[in-house]
């Protein structure tokens, strides 16, 4: 994938998603124009998107490498709890600004440290011990959740300084800070995957790990990097989460875990690994957000919109399959290979 390959401009997955978003916006706009196009609705969407968005990016990198990270939510909650514990212990009502800033810096680094530890454990087990990523991250998910629950007994830690809350509820020129954070993360992951040697390594490992190793790439280092960066994104997501709720607890956002996989695959990430663009993932997230907000506005149970997400996912797979068939018939083996590889869980 060169900087200017012609396929990038007419990316069929992206145009399909843009089309679907337009259809969804027109449909919901038609059903409830006054409420759907109200500024408040779009503001609400802008505040809801980043949390799932950053977590989906954390899922996306392992997916592109041919793996999966089931521990993302658990990692984010552990980071949130670590940061919350440091913040609430060190900051009193009468703390001077300097002490508050110091405590925040300490909390952020402690949270990042916790995230990196989990990422290192995942990366080590996947790359050196060669255990399947689903199993490794299932184990770390249970372990990390267990640690969070053992430490807090399932309780809530809350009450943070305004500087932290700003991340969840503040705006800059009308744009939510959390959305800006998500934009930064998306741009960062996009650059990382598309423009760096590490990103090339990740995509190669996702396509064929053994061939990548034999062609001289240090796959161990790449895989450890994959899980470290995934964990780092969990840490950012944790920041947004604790700021939005003004509290941290084991078990927040647990229902997002499998949704992030749907969002990434809907966004064109090849579930067998090797391919995936951040642009598609961002579009998929926008689509899911429009669907859930739209259904919410016309008074449909949020559960039904989740069911629609599942159905959208299957529909996307169907469309991808049809496209592969067509591409195959129109003699473009290049595209046909994307989704047609056999087997594997």
């Amino acid at each position: 994938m060169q900087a200017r390959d012609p396929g990038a401009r007419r990316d069929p997955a992206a145009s399909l998603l843009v089309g679907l978003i337009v259809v969804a916006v027109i449909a919901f706009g038609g059903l409830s124009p006054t409420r759907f196009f109200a500024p408040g609705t779009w503001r609400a969407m802008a505040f809801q998107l980043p949390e799932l968005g950053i977590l989906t990016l954390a899922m996306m990198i392992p997916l592109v490498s041919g793996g999966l990270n089931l521990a993302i939510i658990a990692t984010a909650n552990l980071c949130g709890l670590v940061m919350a514990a440091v913040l609430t212990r060190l900051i009193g009502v009468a703390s001077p600004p300097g002490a508050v800033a110091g405590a925040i810096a300490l909390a952020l680094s402690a949270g990042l440290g916790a995230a990196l530890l989990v990422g290192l454990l995942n990366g080590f087990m996947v790359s050196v011990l060669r255990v399947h990523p689903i199993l490794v991250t299932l184990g770390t998910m249970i372990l990390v959740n267990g640690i969070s629950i053992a430490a807090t007994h399932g309780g809530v830690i809350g009450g943070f300084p305004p500087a932290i809350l700003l991340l969840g509820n503040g705006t800059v020129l009308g744009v939510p800070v959390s959305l800006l954070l998500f934009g930064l993360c998306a741009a960062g992951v996009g650059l990382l995957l598309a423009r760096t040697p590490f990103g090339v390594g990740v995509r190669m490992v996702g396509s064929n790990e053994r061939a990548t190793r034999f062609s001289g790439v240090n796959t161990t280092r790449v895989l450890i990097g994959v899980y470290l960066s995934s964990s780092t994104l969990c840490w950012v997501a944790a920041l947004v989460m604790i700021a939005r709720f003004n509290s941290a607890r084991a078990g927040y956002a647990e229902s997002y875990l499998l949704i992030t996989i749907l969002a990434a695959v809907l966004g064109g990430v090849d579930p067998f690994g090797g391919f995936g663009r951040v642009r598609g993932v961002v579009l998929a997230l926008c689509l899911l957000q429009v669907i859930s907000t739209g259904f919410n506005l016309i008074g449909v149970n949020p559960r039904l919109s989740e069911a629609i997400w599942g159905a959208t996912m299957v529909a996307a797979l169907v469309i991808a399959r049809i496209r592969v068939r067509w591409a195959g018939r129109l003699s473009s083996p290049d595209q046909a290979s994307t989704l047609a590889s056999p087997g594997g869980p």
Partner: protein
Amino acid sequence: MRERLTSLGRSHEARLAVIVLAIAAFFAVEAPGFPTLANLMDLLEGRAVLAILAAGLLVVLIAGGIDISCAAVAAVSQYLVALCLIRWTGNWALALLLAAGFGAALGAVNALLIHALKAPPVIVTIATMTFYFSMLIFLTKGVSLYDLPDWFTVKVSILGVPLPVAMAAAVLGATAFLLRRVSLGRQIFGLGGNPEAARRMGCNVAGLQVFIYGFSGAMAGLAGLVQAYRVEEVAPSALIGRELDVLAAVVLGGASLTGGRGTVGGTVLGIVLLAMLHNGLTLMGVSSYLFGSVTGLLILLSLAATSVSQGRPQKGGRHAG
């Protein structure tokens, strides 16, 4: 003979059995009330639903697939069976048949999608899981069913063994028979070991997959029925999130995600090990808040041990970098 003994000593099941026995011995000494028949039955009864789900998942894993939707299938078929029984009443045979039938149908949908879309099973079954669970909660509005027929909820035990445990034993026995004694079982192992080779040997891969996911669905249906019997109500959200517990137990029992490996014995040991740990620790007065960490650590250690004993660690990995 000696060869058989050494190969037995090296198997995952044998090591797991030693660990289970050691832990049982430890709790028998340390935890008052642990080594009684009543406690053993309690312990097993609490895990019967999980065990039945695990039987289905085991078969899917051996065939090289994965079924994340099993808990959702259990919840949906449980609700459907309960509706049928409440409206038209019935008997046990009918209830079992309906549960297995609904489950098999819902499970077979996975196979059809996987086969038609050439998509990875994990993605397809996550999508169906999301769809089944959310449709169930949406259509039922989360309302539980309590007015189950009296014949259904009356507590039965066979020779002192509670019905759920007997049911789990029967299901696991049947699964072992399927895997070990029937040619279909060999085909399932073959499909997991090498799908292309299985196809060239003349396996009907599509049909086999419908059977495998249908079997997992049928087991899920039965598990849902047993769950309803145990708690005497049908709550749509009762089984949400259980799919990963099942996966953890099966994996602890030695099944791999790459297919072709796994035994019913190992799965049973995995379930018993987790059940015993929780039960024994509770009896010793250890806080239940620690269970998650213990379970997670156990799974990671088991994965690491399996990997090391199979010599799978990457040679270049350690000194590279």
